[in-house]
């Protein structure tokens, strides 16, 4: 099949457009998603294609926007909320966590909240501490939420379409640095399953588990490690909740070495869960070395470019950490 190369942002837009054509209940709401086309250009021309009712610009009211999506979803619509930066979900945590995540269970099962909440996550744009956080840990810890972090254009489309099929609230954390990256994306309406980790590279020497932008960085590292005679397996978790440990367990049973790479601060971050799962299961017997976590520093994201780079794992960091792990240091 011939390759069709489009960007991550285009893949998301295509998924939304196809979903809107297929289902009149699907609509988008968020700040500056209309004529502006979205702060990161994701909604683009959808406003012109579907009109201001279904690509709905909102006042600056994150709590109200998410609440409106919850209410619309409760009565059968399929809202896609765009929160301009994931940091601003801090304003909507009550609606996301106390309402959307709990309604189906708490109200007895008759009602549910088929809402999709998309938000640009992560650092690297020089926007400093309030516009650069990676907050996936908060959402992954909340029962009733599904959480995905697409790392490629193809997954961005496939996971979003799966999220739209899901009768439960799904949080989609997109990475700002990935929007302009390109890859092959099938034109049809395919689904990438939620709850299935993805082995993106096989390898027998060590297992690298990564999320978001760290997946491509880890793949790059793996390629360079190959040249050094180190054969790394790279697994993209893709869905943080519910978490699929299958491919991770299987790979660790072969490599005996596990390295966990995330952008978010290390302390009580998502990768701690992966380490815990291994250390409480049979996987621990396969380890030949302690697990290595390579995460963001436990500091707010700084503005200065060199500082911003210093606080999250970069390619050289992954390379040296992997070599250390191989050397058993």
């Amino acid at each position, binding site marked *: 099949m011939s390759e069709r190369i489009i960007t991550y942002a285009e893949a998301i837009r295509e998924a939304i457009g196809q979903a809107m054509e297929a289902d009149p209940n699907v*609509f988008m709401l968020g700040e500056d998603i209309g004529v502006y086309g979205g702060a990161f250009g994701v909604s683009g021309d959808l406003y012109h294609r579907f009109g201001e*009712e*279904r690509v709905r610009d*909102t*006042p600056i*009211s994150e*709590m*109200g*926007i*998410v*609440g*409106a*999506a*919850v*209410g*619309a*979803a*409760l*009565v*059968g*619509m399929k*809202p896609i909320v765009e929160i301009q930066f994931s940091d601003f979900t801090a304003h909507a945590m*009550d*609606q996301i966590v*106390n*309402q959307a995540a709990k*309604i*189906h*269970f*708490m*109200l*007895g*099962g*008759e*009602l*549910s909240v088929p809402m999709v909440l998309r938000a640009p996550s992560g650092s690297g744009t020089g926007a400093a501490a309030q516009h650069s956080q990676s907050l996936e840990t908060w959402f992954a810890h909340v*029962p*009733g939420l*599904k959480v995905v972090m697409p790392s490629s254009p193809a997954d961005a489309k496939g996971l979003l379409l799966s999220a739209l*099929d*899901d*009768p*439960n609230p799904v949080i989609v954390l997109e990475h700002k640095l990935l929007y302009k990256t390109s890859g092959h994306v099938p034109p049809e309406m395919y689904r990438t399953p939620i709850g299935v980790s993805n082995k993106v590279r096989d390898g027998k020497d060590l297992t690298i588990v990564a999320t978001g932008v760290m997946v491509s960085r880890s793949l790059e590292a793996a390629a360079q490690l190959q040249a050094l005679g180190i054969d790394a397996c790279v697994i993209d978790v893709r869905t943080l909740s519910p978490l699929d440990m299958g491919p991770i367990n299987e790979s660790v049973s072969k490599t005996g070495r596990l390295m966990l790479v995330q952008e978010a601060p290390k302390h009580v971050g998502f990768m701690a869960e992966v380490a815990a799962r291994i250390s409480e299961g049979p996987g621990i017997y396969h380890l030949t070395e302690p697990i290595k976590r390579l995460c963001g520093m436990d500091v707010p994201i700084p503005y200065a470019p060199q500082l911003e780079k210093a606080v999250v794992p970069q390619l050289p960091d992954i390379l040296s950490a992997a070599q250390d792990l191989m050397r058993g240091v």
Partner: protein
Amino acid sequence: MATITPLIPPAQGAVSDDLAASQAALESLLAIRFFEEAVDGLFARGLMHGTMHLSIGQEAVATGVCAALRQTDFITSTHRGHSHCIAKGADLTRMMAELLAKQTGYCRGRGGSMHIADAKTGNLGANGIVAGGIPIATGAALAQKMRDTDSVVVSFFGDGATNEGAFHEALNLASVWNLPVVFVCENNKYGMSFSTAKSMKVEKISERAASYAMPGVTVDGNDVDAVFDAAKVAVARARSGGGPTLIECVTYRHKGHSKSDKNLYRTKEEIEFWKTKDPVGIFETRLIEKGVLTKSQVDQITEAVRNEIRNAIQEASAAPDSDPAELLSSVFRQVG
């Protein structure tokens, strides 16, 4: 299954001028009152756990508003939600079963008093978060507009809720989107222990509608007729595409905020004064004075409603307890 006659609007004029509307309204007032008195007793005798918030003294608000609604209309409710739930037409047995943590309860015993919802009658749920239901009502109304239905949404909330950011954001969205929603504030003078005199400087909460260029009215929340009249106008406006309205219903709760309340923040005199304005008594007297119902008809209705509540308690008590086995499988709705 224990129910009362569904509320209906009067053919014309006031509720208290119309026999059918009056009977249904009286049943609603009494059902709310007796249901909560029963629940109060069950708690006192340790037969119910958790906490609860009673609307005894505020029955006219839910009754007057829901008399202006159709079953296909929606409501969002609050932690003090029994009155809304009953007035919208819920099954008293399933409500009681929920409070008794039974598998047959509206939430299968998972939610309790603060989370009763009833899709069948359009009750999108009580809410344990103050003002939590207001943005949700706005969203449900947005769906009605986008789907071009003629259903409206009513959001009930208290005076204290109007100090939450959620109130402000939701009313602004409803305003700029011109949505079919009616915001009903039950101003019972206190948010838990904090009086409206201290929690806000406006004289009337309805003044806050001006921030959204939305009509705002204040009515006697202990008078079914007054509440209905205001609701009728607002609901008609919403249904016809005229957009949202804020209705403030001034009322009072006779009981404490919740079980743990020692009433240190208000005087016995104040409570006694408001008991003289009891919405149930006021409506009964009016019906008898107007000759719509005789004293003995009122007594018959009273007895009939008491029986329904007794049935509700009996049926609910006999039901099986909430089932722990289902827990993990109930967090998410199955896909597809």
